[in-house]
């Protein structure tokens, strides 16, 4: 446990990476999501706000990392997601994986970020230069979905496509 966490302050990447040090590890793959100034064709993103359902989020995050450790031949994996207000260029999420060999390190790193984006209850509100703002995936999905029936049993995936 404690391989997935939320942070309200900036992330110390040197310390994060050091958690994965291991004399049998020859490969380290990492992914970072950075706040960018555009999203899904819309320019003028000024800043973001992340909100998390933390009690469930850390459980789901730990499950994802446990899955990666079971599926891939890796020696360690960690993930941190920021919450709160972020500016362009800020780190929003970090994933680090160590392994003896690079195939497993890359595959597990990709697995973790994909699953975190789909499964961990985190929401992103974008604030635009024109003064508008919106919850990503929710307002756009709503426009597409019309009155979506909430009572369908829900799987673990939806259709969001981001960085």
């Amino acid at each position, binding site marked *: 446990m404690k391989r997935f966490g939320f942070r309200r302050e900036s992330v110390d990447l040197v310390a994060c990476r050091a958690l994965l040090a291991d004399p049998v590890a020859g490969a380290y793959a990492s992914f970072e999501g950075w706040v960018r100034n555009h999203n899904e064709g819309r320019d003028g993103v000024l800043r973001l706000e992340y909100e998390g359902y933390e009690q469930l989020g850390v*459980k789901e995050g730990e499950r994802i990392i446990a899955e990666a450790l079971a599926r891939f031949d890796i020696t360690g994996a960690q993930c941190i997601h920021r919450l709160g207000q972020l500016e362009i260029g800020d780190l929003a999420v970090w994933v680090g994986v160590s392994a003896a060999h690079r195939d497993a390190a890359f595959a597990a790193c990709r697995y973790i970020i994909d699953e975190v984006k789909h499964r961990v209850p985190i929401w992103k509100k974008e604030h635009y230069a024109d003064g508008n703002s919106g*919850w990503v995936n929710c307002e756009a*999905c709503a426009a597409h979905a019309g009155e979506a029936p*909430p*009572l*369908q*049993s829900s799987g673990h995936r939806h259709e969001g496509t981001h960085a």
Partner: protein
Amino acid sequence: MVQIRVEYFAILREHVGCTHEAVSTPAATVGDLYAELDRRHAFPAVGRLKVAVNDEFCDWSTPLRDGDSVVFIPPVAGG
């Protein structure tokens, strides 16, 4: 009737105007509870919702028990 704590996040929190509320309800399932609260709050359409009871994902048919904590989960957008 059961006493339920409902927590709201993100677009639902902004829509309802609070982070949580205490609800006394005859609803038998979390789906019934959603329907009842939707009549009261007219939740925005946000695509497919998920739902959690006591900080675990669950089905909409999950029965409600007194003291449960329920969260309706709009489409997520981490990363």
